């Protein structure tokens, strides 16, 4: 629906304030739903930049660049999204994890791989599949795929049946087995916390994209091991990276069409 003249002027006015006060978090916008946040599932605090849009968001990861023992991407993601640090494997919730090459690419791993490859820790996260089984099985459409390819969750609709967790071939989903809030180190007011009983996972930082910022893990990585961009744009960083040689995706034979590409 096209905005009426009155709505347009309101938007223009808000935008002007936003331009004039880029450093102040404009709470009023967040509550009323700023124009820039229109593509987001959550009303996010607006930033100084226009929303980033793409035909198909994708990510490339070069685990070879990672510093040994570095967990910056995980820390940044979990702080940004209020992911609890529960500290026991049973109740564990995480959006990104680090895994050995052999476990991430069991079909490609063999005993003669050089130690430099075998010893690598590979960041694993939701693959934002082109053909996501989790979306197919969800009985309430609480998880769905946006036109730009991001697979998101509606935490207010999820009934916690965990069919999506069984369906995900990558183990990318976590259940809130108990109230996560006491385990959040520092609550980020710009992102919702979850209740017990719902499933959650990486959202490709859709709330940041709506504010024109790149995903938290990509920004946090000092080694530039991760790149993010539009797969349909030949000049995007992900496309330039993919053009240079062979890249791997996790379990491509399942036909899910994962959109995280690994360069090893």
């Amino acid at each position, binding site marked *: 629906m096209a905005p009426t003249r009155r709505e347009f002027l309101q938007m223009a006015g808000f935008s002007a304030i936003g331009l004039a006060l880029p450093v102040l978090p404009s709470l009023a916008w967040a509550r009323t739903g700023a124009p820039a946040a229109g593509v987001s599932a959550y009303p996010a605090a607006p930033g100084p930049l226009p929303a980033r849009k793409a035909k198909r968001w994708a990510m490339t990861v070069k685990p070879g660049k990672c510093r040994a023992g570095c967990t910056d991407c995980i820390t940044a993601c979990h702080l940004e999204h209020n992911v609890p640090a529960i500290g026991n*494997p*049973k*109740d*564990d*919730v995480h959006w990104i*994890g680090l*895994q050995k090459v*052999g*476990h*991430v690419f*069991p079909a490609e791993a063999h005993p003669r791989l050089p130690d430099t490859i075998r010893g690598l820790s590979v960041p*694993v996260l939701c693959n934002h599949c082109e053909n996501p*089984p989790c979306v*197919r*099985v*969800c*009985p*309430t*459409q*609480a998880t769905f795929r946006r036109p730009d390819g991001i697979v998101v969750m509606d935490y207010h*609709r*999820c*009934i*916690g*049946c*965990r*069919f999506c*967790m*069984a*369906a*995900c*071939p*990558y*183990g990318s989903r*976590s*259940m*809130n*087995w*108990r*109230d996560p809030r006491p385990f959040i180190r520092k609550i980020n007011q710009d992102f919702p916390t979850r*209740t*017990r*009983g*719902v*499933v959650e996972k990486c959202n490709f930082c859709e709330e940041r994209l709506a504010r024109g910022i790149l995903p938290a893990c990509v920004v946090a990585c000092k080694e530039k091991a991760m790149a993010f961009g539009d797969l349909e744009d030949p000049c995007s960083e992900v496309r330039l990276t993919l053009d240079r040689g062979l890249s791997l995706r996790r*379990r491509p034979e*399942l*036909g*899910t069409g994962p959109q995280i590409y690994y360069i090893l």
Partner: protein
Amino acid sequence: MLEKALKGSRGYGIWVAFLLLLVAVGFFFYLRQLDYGLGITGLSRDVSWGLYIAQFTFLVGIAASAVMLVLPYYLHDFKAFGRITILGEFLAVSAVIMCVTFVFVDLGRPDRAVNLLLYPSPRSVLFWDVIVLNGYLLLNIVTGWTVLESDKKGIPPPAWVKPLIYLSIPWAVSIHTVTAFIYSGLPGRGFWLTAIMAPRFLASAFASGPALLILFCLILKRFCRFDAGEKAIQTLAKIVTYALATSIFFVMVEIFTVFYSQVPGHMHHLTYLFAGLEGHNTIARWMTVSAFTALISLVLLIIPRTRKNESLLALACFGVFLSLWIEKGLGLVVTGFVPSPLEAIPDYSPTGAEVAITVGVWALGLLLVTMFYKIFVSVRNE
């Protein structure tokens, strides 16, 4: 007719009180689960379905097996089943109610269960399972109750029940097929990704359900002055025999395909199930019990002399029930998750609270069976 469930002998009263106590204990722990979250169970990120969903899967089979009475009686006019067809239907009703309860207690946000209907998702198998289960529940309540009521009045059942009874036959197949599709339609779980899942489910259902029904009939005969008749019980026993043999055959087919092709992604699961992986062998020990019980029961059922011996038949039926309960109610669900997509070998063992809730739901089902059967026997003995 309902009032007949409310009065009975002293033994009946004690049994009902005992079941009510178990239901109350289960309910108490369910309230704790509501308060704390599903973390009160042994479930984890890796093994995200456990005892509850496994019971649901097993009980769908018990519910579906009513068709093994309805079909011979109504389609082939097999008179011997006339006396007990209603018992099968009431068992189905109780089993479906248990199924729905198990799915409900497994939900992380049961307060939002109505979202299943508010946002119908035809692409989700779970959505279809809700539809077929509730449809089956309704069909069996209506047909079972109506036929029993006509019995009481000594008139033939009204003509409109017949189409519903015929409909309930394919519907019974559908509930277990759709439930199998929950598992077999997932791309990443090699253990479940097999086209034979639905046939396997049906074969084991047609063994475990009638086996339970035989046990119930023998109990009714001993304690409640109701004799289902030698012919009915022996025919049921033959159904159990063939279904059990088919079920074992299907498992062997699975084992051959996986271990001869030697695809690791499929092999690891079955190795875990029957032998354990890297020392994680709790499930494997249970499965050893299941395998031996199934074989011994099969022998007892095949040999006519042992099958016709009531005590040995009871033993064999108990064996069939136990074996298939272990296979479906413990092994099938958990093994799909082990090893995990990232090749971890997580351990799952149900917590005390989880077991208490599970026992509570079973007690609820048994209570329903008890009350339905009490009504049935009272009407029949009049």
